[in-house]
């Protein structure tokens, strides 16, 4: 059990399929300031790779990924 990550905003994208988790993540990150952290929860198994690709292309940093039973949690630090 790791220590709970701190975050500045939460995005619930559970139950949504491609491309909505990415589109909503982009919108949510835009509301943050540099180095703030967005926590995103998804259930789309494709979002694990999608989120990594999105972060790579947009220059944002995925600080941590957690996988639960059917859910994925991403902590994304706004860099760009």
């Amino acid at each position, binding site marked *: 059990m790791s220590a709970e990550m701190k975050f500045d905003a939460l995005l619930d994208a559970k139950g*949504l*399929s*491609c*491309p*909505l988790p*990415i*589109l909503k993540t*982009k919108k949510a990150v835009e509301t943050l300031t540099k180095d703030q952290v967005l926590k995103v929860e998804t259930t789309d198994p494709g979002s694990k790779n999608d989120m990594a690709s999105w972060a790579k*292309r947009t220059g944002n940093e995925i600080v941590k990924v957690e996988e639960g039973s059917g859910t994925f949690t991403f902590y994304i630090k706004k860099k760009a």
Partner: protein
Amino acid sequence: MANKKMTIIASKGSLDMAYPPLILATTAAAMDIDVTIFFTFYGLDIIKKNNADNLKISPVGNPALPMPVPIPTLVASLPGMEAMATAMMKSMFNKHGVASIGQLLDLARESGVKLIGCQMTMDVMGVKQSDIIDGVEFGGAATWLDAASDAQINLFI
């Protein structure tokens, strides 16, 4: 660093074939890629006013279409079967949390995706500029080629 660029030619107007251009366009915009979509032939149906959520899917000539029971081609061509296949597909998309075509089109416009209507096919098919949603520009092959020449990703759908 300059944004990467992508263009898509959207040439199909069925519900299933309207998804790929809009999914890729909205996602590309979210990845800081500048996107141009060139709507031509049946793809124009996607950008006709109040039409994005009225696109249909045909069960005829589409052996991969998932159906509750196998449907012979002759039966698939009966009246009502297209409406049934369309309703079924929409409910499957909805159940899986997939945005509708109308929602994706709105998201594309919001995120600055450039939409171009093909003037030649509009003329041929009797589509007026006033039949097309606001914010669309109009042009032809040279307009797309100009955009495509500067793009890293160019798709024909």
